[in-house]
């Protein structure tokens, strides 16, 4: 394990992480990445650098969010960090298992997560439970021997088709109101009855999936947290997700700098109106960076709370704005399909993803209104009814 602990100064954290990466990164990286990455991720995981905020007894370094961000920066600088496909596992699964798991579950799952031996996905949303996630209807019924039989359909599950495990919420009690009859499971995606089918997105990529669960039987040891209290477990995952989808804590060149560079290349920079729109997007990006730094300092080692919704809205607004500006500064390129406009076309078609994924901006505004500003909750007229009496559509 690398010599970094909660008492190490931030400057030292960055210096030691950099030195360790440079000493240990195999020669031939990143060109020969495909051949080298499995071994590298084991080395990285064992060093603690892949999961710096995890407690030391679980293979992490126990450091606060700001130190972890510096480590992530160093890894990004060497293009040596874990890919986005590992985000659900490392950023969401790990913290949820650490908060709620039994000793056996931590022992079984955390090291393979840290060393990229197993990939995870999230099985939360359903065709009938999107923004109203707590109305999910995938059912888990306990058998005589204590095992659970699970059936239902999940959707928008990123990387489910290439995952080993899934973070699953299922209905275990229909006789209580919606939030009180959910249980959380760690589902082995290789079990019979699990069928993940990639869904093609509007940008042509197929990153997320619909997942069909047909009489999948899991042992009781796959349950995370108490029976019927899975909503609370799920909140841990959701908070980590909002905070995690909010960008890097550093003030430096980012999306709008690249956009301005392209605007200078294609000549749009000479148009004062377009230039000013770019500068305004730049200002928005800077204040988000500053806000993310603040969030990481204020967060320390606590779990993220409702304030993550503020950054998630700001981040998705920015992504959308940048994607649209990217199309605006080179309109002909997108229409004519010129080679150097391919990326801008892809970004443009991806513009709306972040404001919907991980909870829509409307839901985030409800969260800010209700949990940050103390406004009255949105009324669900059936909130106190047993789940089985709820209208569903």
């Amino acid at each position, binding site marked *: 394990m690398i010599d970094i602990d909660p008492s190490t100064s931030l400057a030292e954290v960055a210096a030691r992480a950099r030195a360790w990466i440079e000493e240990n990164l195999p020669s031939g990286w990143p060109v020969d990445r495909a051949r080298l990455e499995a071994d590298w991720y084991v080395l990285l995981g064992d060093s603690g650098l892949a999961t710096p905020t995890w407690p030391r007894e679980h293979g992490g370094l126990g450091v606060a969010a700001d130190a972890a961000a510096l480590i992530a920066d160093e890894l990004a600088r060497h293009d040596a960090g874990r890919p986005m496909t590992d985000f659900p596992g490392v950023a969401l699964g790990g913290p949820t298992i650490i908060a709620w798991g039994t000793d056996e579950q931590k022992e079984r799952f955390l090291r393979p997560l840290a060393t990229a031996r197993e990939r995870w996905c999230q099985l939360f949303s359903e065709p009938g439970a999107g923004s109203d996630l707590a109305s999910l209807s995938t059912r888990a019924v306990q058998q005589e021997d204590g095992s659970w039989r699970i059936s239902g359909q999940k959707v928008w599950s990123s990387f489910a088709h290439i995952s080993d495990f899934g973070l699953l919420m299922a209905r275990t009690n229909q006789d209580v109101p919606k939030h009180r009859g959910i249980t959380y499971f760690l589902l082995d995606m290789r079990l019979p009855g699990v069928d993940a089918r990639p869904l093609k997105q509007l940008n042509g990529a197929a990153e997320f999936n619909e997942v069909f669960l047909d009489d999948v039987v899991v042992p009781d040891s796959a349950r995370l947290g108490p029976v019927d209290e899975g909503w609370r477990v799920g909140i841990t995952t959701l908070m980590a997700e909002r905070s995690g989808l909010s960008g890097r804590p550093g003030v430096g060149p980012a999306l709008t700098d690249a956009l301005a560079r392209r605007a200078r290349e294609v000549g749009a920079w000479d148009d004062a109106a377009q230039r000013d729109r770019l500068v305004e997007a730049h200002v928005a990006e800077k204040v988000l960076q*500053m806000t993310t730094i603040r969030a990481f300092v204020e967060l320390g080692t606590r779990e993220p709370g409702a304030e993550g919704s503020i950054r998630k*809205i700001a981040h998705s607004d920015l992504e959308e704005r940048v994607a649209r500006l990217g199309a605006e500064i080179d309109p002909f390129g997108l229409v004519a399909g010129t080679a150097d406009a391919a990326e801008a076309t892809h970004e443009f078609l991806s513009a709306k993803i972040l404001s919907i994924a991980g909870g829509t901006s409307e839901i985030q505004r409800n969260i800010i209104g209700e949990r940050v500003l103390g406004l009255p909750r949105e009324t669900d007229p059936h909130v106190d009814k047993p789940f089985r009496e709820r209208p569903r559509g």
Partner: protein
Amino acid sequence: MSTTPFDWSDDQQEIRSLLRKKFATSSGTEIARAALEAGEDTGAAARWLELSAEIGLAGLTLPESVGGMGTGRVELAIVGEEMGRALVGGPYLSTVVLAAEAIVRSGDEDAAQAVLPSVAEGTTTLALAVAETSAAWTEPTTRHTDGRLTGRKQGVVGLPGADVLVVSAVDADGHTSLYLVDTAAEGVAVTPTPGIDPTRPVATVDLDGAVARPLGRPGRAHEVLAFVRENAAIFLAAEQAGGSRTCVTVTAEYARTRIQFGQPIGTFQGVKHRLADMEVRTAQAHSAAVWAAWQTPGSPEAALGADVARSWNSRAYLQNAFDTIQLHGGIGITWEHDAHLYLRRAQADAALLGPLSAEHQRLAANLGTESA
């Protein structure tokens, strides 16, 4: 002091809570309303003296060599946020943020020793007279000849009331320099021109052969004023963040208690979501002002921070002030409700240093020129 932005020291937190407590009982909105109706704020000097004597407000960020406490921009931003929250006005901006900063940055020790000790005590207040025909600090036409100044300065914040002015002028050699002028001196005429924000007086100053003492070396006005502008941009951004925060607090409280259609209006998404957007703006305005305050004065980071904070926070406060009125409905557009007092401050803060195009031009100059 910690070099990590947002890593507040115990002293800094104490200053904030002291100011918040003090300003909570200082009836900022009542004073603003009275000043608006009377056309002047007659109690300003007495309150300033009291604040300076009681909590050392005037001297907080001034150097220890002139009797100040020697703190820096982080503390300045704390004062700004708390003044913005409580709508406190008075001589702080003109005296400490603008004119005293010019005296300190001029490097003129004699001038500092002559003027600043009584400023730190709260017995002398200052104003910066550099704007002439626009709020942007363009090249002055005021002339300096044989130790005397002649010209007109407009939009001078802190007048009537200030005892000493820091004035920009061009001398016979064509150098733009700074000078100190006593407002009581012969050849100084002050005409009040009450602006949109009643919490800080504004006036036109006509100088007709007024005796002036040079401040710092000749020809250094632009260099000194660049520091002053950065200082003011960060202070105002903090004030805007504080004002935005009060808009959110006041409006959320109203949305929790105002009943229509049998329920608090904050239940409705049309209201809730507008308020959420106000919060998103405000949270980021606070980050921007504080981050900027934490950078080394005069560094590229401080310049970036000041420009970004000025741009974001100016719009944030204005939009929040407008949204506060919108969400209060009919009562929001009355003279009787305080919402317009925040709107007035928001517009004054946004306009004080000239149009935002200057900030945007500076930001554009560096944008997309470095490799990622």
